[in-house]
């Protein structure tokens, strides 16, 4: 019998003791009658015990602490600067896209841009017998969605790269 993914997860939660009492009882009832499930539980329990007791913890070099202490007064590598630079570029890109499309929108560029999507022409005729509606797509709605999307992205980037670090720094000082 092939045990499903959901029951596997349940078995792991049972091993971890994170099932509710009712769920654990239901599983125990199932285990009484299902030999394959019981065998699977034994396998998972064995693997769990092995990992708990013998998962290898690696040891660094003997002079590890000495090296760290010697280098404490040097500034750490500036890898963090690169993601910040990327985030600022992303923020600028999102704002430029939002402002650009808003200007085009205000000038009426998208007012007359509409298209019709005929779903009847695309439907698989042998599977769908009924007539499906034809969609009229207005470019203004799509562009509005793009502008809102860009503004949301800009706010998220602004929050994560500028506001959050700023307030965290203020709080800690």
């Amino acid at each position, binding site marked *: 019998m092939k045990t499903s993914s959901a029951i*596997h*997860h349940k078995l*792991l939660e049972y091993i971890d003791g994170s099932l509710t009492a009712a769920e654990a009882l239901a599983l125990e009832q199932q285990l009484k009658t299902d030999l394959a499930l019981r065998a699977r539980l034994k*396998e*998972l329990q*064995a*693997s*769990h015990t*092995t*990992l*708990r*007791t*013998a*998962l*290898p*913890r*690696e*040891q*660094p*070099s003997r002079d*590890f*602490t000495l*090296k*760290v*202490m010697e*280098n*404490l007064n*040097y*500034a*750490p*590598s500036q*890898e963090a600067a690169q993601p910040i630079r990327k985030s600022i570029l992303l923020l600028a890109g999102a704002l430029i896209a939002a402002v650009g499309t808003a200007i085009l929108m205000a000038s009426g560029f998208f007012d007359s841009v509409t298209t019709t999507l005929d779903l009847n022409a695309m439907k698989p005729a042998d599977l769908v017998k009924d007539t499906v509606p034809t969609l009229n797509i207005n470019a203004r709605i799509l562009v509005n969605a793009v502008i809102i999307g860009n503004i949301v992205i800009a706010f998220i980037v602004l929050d994560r790269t500028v506001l959050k670090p700023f307030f*965290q*720094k203020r*709080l*800690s*000082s």
Partner: protein
Amino acid sequence: MIIDPDHSVIDRILSGDQAAYAELVNKHKSYAFTIALRILQTRPDAEEAAQDSFIKAYHNLRSFNRQAKFSTWFYRIVFNTAVSYKRRQRQHFQDIETTVIHYGQEAEGILEKTDKKKYIAKALLALNEADRTALSLFYLEEFSMEEIAEITGMQTNTIKVRLHRARLRLAEELKTMLNHEAITL
């Protein structure tokens, strides 16, 4: 308020006792190195990433707000540092196959003290780096799913799914290995 013995050591460091930092390094170095090694798979890179993490943590110790355990905050630095080292490794077009063999041989050399450890080290190689890391965080230091999510910056549900998948995969790998061993005996 979290009671963490590391907090008193941090107080000493912040009041000017720089040498006290060695206590934190000695306490966390093995685990930091293990996490870095799970991600980077080569000992020199893992050593460098772990040392870099300790130096970063030292320079940012004032920004540690003590609402969490020091270990959770620090291992997040280790995780992020190792991941950025990994990106650098990829940029250098490192031959993955060579790395895996190198790690396997090295891991075997260190771990052949016990068969169990040898099998686990081999089985871990079948997992991807994120699953290996989640598994190490869960079993080595017995972090909760929420703490692992905090360290890795992932959602708790994502961690739960990843961890379950890794545990199932590892159980399969161990079973296959042991069956194979029994056949070849």
